[in-house]
């Protein structure tokens, strides 16, 4: 995240301004900056539009989770001057209508098939920012699998029977590719569906380095 976003009042404009007075907070005028009464929380209450969404990759969704609210309360003393976490998005900013945002996103639901599993799942690639996140999500989804990273190859494995899966995807041109070769954004744009293929079948897509772990090949 670019450093510019962390500075509400960049240094170049500081001279002569009483920054503390004009610092953005959530409190009422005249309140001291840090007052956290047990009952009425003055100055620390998060306004409706200060709600910060922690859902990675998804913007403009209000975080309804009470737990996450509380955590942020403690964090956000003095409110808006705290820097936002990497993927946190402010509600309603930038001012782009949801329908416009959603349309750009809705194309990115893709089917995920796992060899041997009876049904497919769908994931929204827009929800993730990296391959690691995607694989974690797949790991959650197909709970029998775990990620094994070795030799900088990302593989999913079923620890129960040691079967390894290779993540592959079909791109726009209809070709089957190995997940991970191209930059993430490019992958999101070109991916049409994902298949977790058994390593034993992934002959043409075998990793360059020899496998170190034994598996049912």
């Amino acid at each position: 995240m670019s450093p510019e976003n962390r500075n509400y009042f960049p240094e170049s404009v500081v001279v002569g301004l009483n920054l503390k007075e004009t610092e953005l907070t959530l409190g009422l005028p005249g309140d001291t900056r840090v007052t956290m009464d047990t009952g009425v929380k003055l100055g620390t209450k998060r306004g409706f539009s200060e709600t910060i969404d922690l859902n990675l990759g998804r913007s403009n969704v209000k975080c309804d989770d009470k737990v996450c609210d509380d955590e942020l309360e403690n964090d956000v003393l003095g409110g808006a001057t705290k820097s936002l976490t990497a993927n946190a998005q402010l509600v309603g900013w930038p001012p782009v209508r949801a329908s416009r945002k959603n349309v750009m996103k809705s194309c990115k639901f893709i089917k995920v098939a796992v060899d041997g599993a009876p049904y497919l799942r769908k994931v929204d690639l827009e929800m993730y920012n990296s391959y690691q996140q995607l694989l974690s999500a797949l790991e959650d989804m197909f709970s029998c699998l775990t990620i094994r990273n070795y030799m900088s190859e990302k593989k999913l494995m079923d620890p129960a029977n040691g079967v390894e899966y290779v993540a592959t995807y079909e791109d726009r041109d209809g070709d089957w590719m190995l997940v991970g070769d191209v930059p993430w954004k490019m992958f999101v744009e070109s991916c049409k569906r994902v298949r977790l293929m058994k390593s034993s079948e992934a002959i043409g897509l075998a990793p360059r380095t020899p496998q170190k772990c034994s598996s049912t090949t």
Partner: protein
Amino acid sequence: MSKDDDRSPPLDLRGADIAESSSKTRNCVTGSGHVTGMNPMEFQAPYPDQVLENVLENVLQFLTSRRDRNAASLVCKSWCRVEALTRSELFIGNCYSVSPKRATARFSRVRAVAIKGRPRFADFNLMPPEWGAHFKPWVAALGSAYPWLEKVYLKRMSVTDEDLKHLAEYFPSFKELVLVCCDGFGTRGLAVIAKKCRQLRVLDLIESEVADSDMDWIGEFPESGITCLESLIFDCVESPINFEALERLVVRSPSLKKLRLNRFVSIGQLYRLMVRAPQLTHLGTGSFSLAEGVAHGDQEPDYESAFAACKSLVCLSGFREIATDYLSAIYAVCANLTSLNLSYANINAEQLKTVIFHCHKLQTFWVLDTICDEGLQAAAATCKDLRELRVFPIDAREDSEGPVSEVGLQAISEGCRKLQSILYFCQHMTNAAVIAMSNNCPDLEVFRLCIMGRHRPDHLTGQPMDEGFGAIVKNCKKLTRLAVSGLLTDQAFSYIGRYGKLVRTLSVAFAGNSDRGLKYVLEGCPRLQKLEIRDSPFGDEALRSGLHHYYNMRFLWMSSCSLSPQGCREIARALPRLVVEVIKDEAEVNRGECEEHIDDAFDILYMYRSLEGPRDDAPHFVQEHSKQKQGIGLSNIVLLIIYPSMKRWRFGLEELEVQNGEFTKFSSMPPVEKQELAFTREKKKNLVCLF
């Protein structure tokens, strides 16, 4: 429209015999000998100026601009009455500013109604979804008052399927329904409209949220006979439609000029429609890609010739899931296009160039920033007649890459000198480019620049963006709408207050240093009608500085600023005709404890002038600070009143208010001090107060 309809539309005075109207009665006779659609209730005793009024009617009916009509209605009672009789298009800018009953009582011959509801910031999830703006009370009132109603235009209203059903039932002459940014209804409601509105000419759904009730609404249009359909816009509908039914409908609609398909219509299906409707002037192409499961083949239809056959096409949009290979199909129509909307098409500069190169006549251009500065340069080079440009971000986040910048803006300003309206999303901007635009495009009326990173300064100089926006308000003498962004100090607002004399709509976010900023604007901009501010350090003192002006405004929105509940109450006390809504984060509000929490911080201040006082449909998270609700002690007391025509006395202490000639009694109270009395201008001279 049939002239034999019994419930005839309002009097058409063009045929009226002036000599006839010299009679003192109100029942005028048209040339055809019909007694007019005059409600017997309207008969009044003859009064002077009858002749004058009839002449006035003949004249005022030609007034179309509502601003002119509003002015005319203020001249005197007579003009007010006659203007009300001749107004056929009713525009309600804020649905809560006046009640349906009051509006329909004043204007008795309305054929077309336009109503706007929620404030714009609600579009960005800043307002809790159940806030209000329901069409329901309106549809009931309109139904009884205007059985001849033909057109309804709604923006940011909540409309239910039930409301749509009533629309279809109450108005047999119903012709046009336009729903912009509305929600609350679904395909079920659309089905009723399609089925029952036999005279439907226009069904336009624009950026509305339409629930999928799994209903084939297209199939509900009458299956046989020619339709009068001229415009069918449903590109925002996020559910599949019955294509075969649509095709049949298009075939039976020779008057169809505007057709905007949703993304569930494939390019193959588009082709079939186009060859059946070459008379189209406005086309939304739907997905503009192959249907799922269909592969590229040799037997693909000749899309190019289909487009070429549409010789009248001037407005092209859609491209919802564009397969860029097909873009070349539209080249044939580009030369005639005045409006091109590619804002859902993820295309790059090269792809854009192939298209824009042909678009010499383009006046309106909406596009995604994926075309980069290079694409904008190409547009600037070709589209010399451009009036409106909107550049939307494909990745609407603060820290995304910014494919467009000041370079694109500069190019546009140099190439498109006739520019009137611009909406530009970017990550980086410079004052120099904005200043250049202010100099190159003197016709600018709408300037909306959104630098997506909050508080971002000029990225070359590090300076605030004050000078850029200052130049815009100073040099663009026709500017009526402004949206600011980037790092802005009070100085920017000083410029706006000083030079923005025509500004009607101002949108502010994450800007300013202190109360002075807002004060500059409220004190300096006499035409300001709509002010929306978020996350800016403006407080009660600044709010107070607008007291002289709030009655002239449609609304003021301030969220996450530095206001206090006391400040808001002060405004409410000072301005009884202002509804002051304070909206809290829903999770925090407990209905029963509302009074105790009155001093808590809140999130949104939304205030607007209204003749009705606080609305009765406010959800629990909305707190009204309006004066009326304060109750005893703040309203008006009169001891004795003698009202000439009523010849009545009232004794004792009663709380009274006069609204439009009606006495509304509040309550009898223990003796209190005499306070001010709210009169309408009209009644003042007829009332005498005795103590």
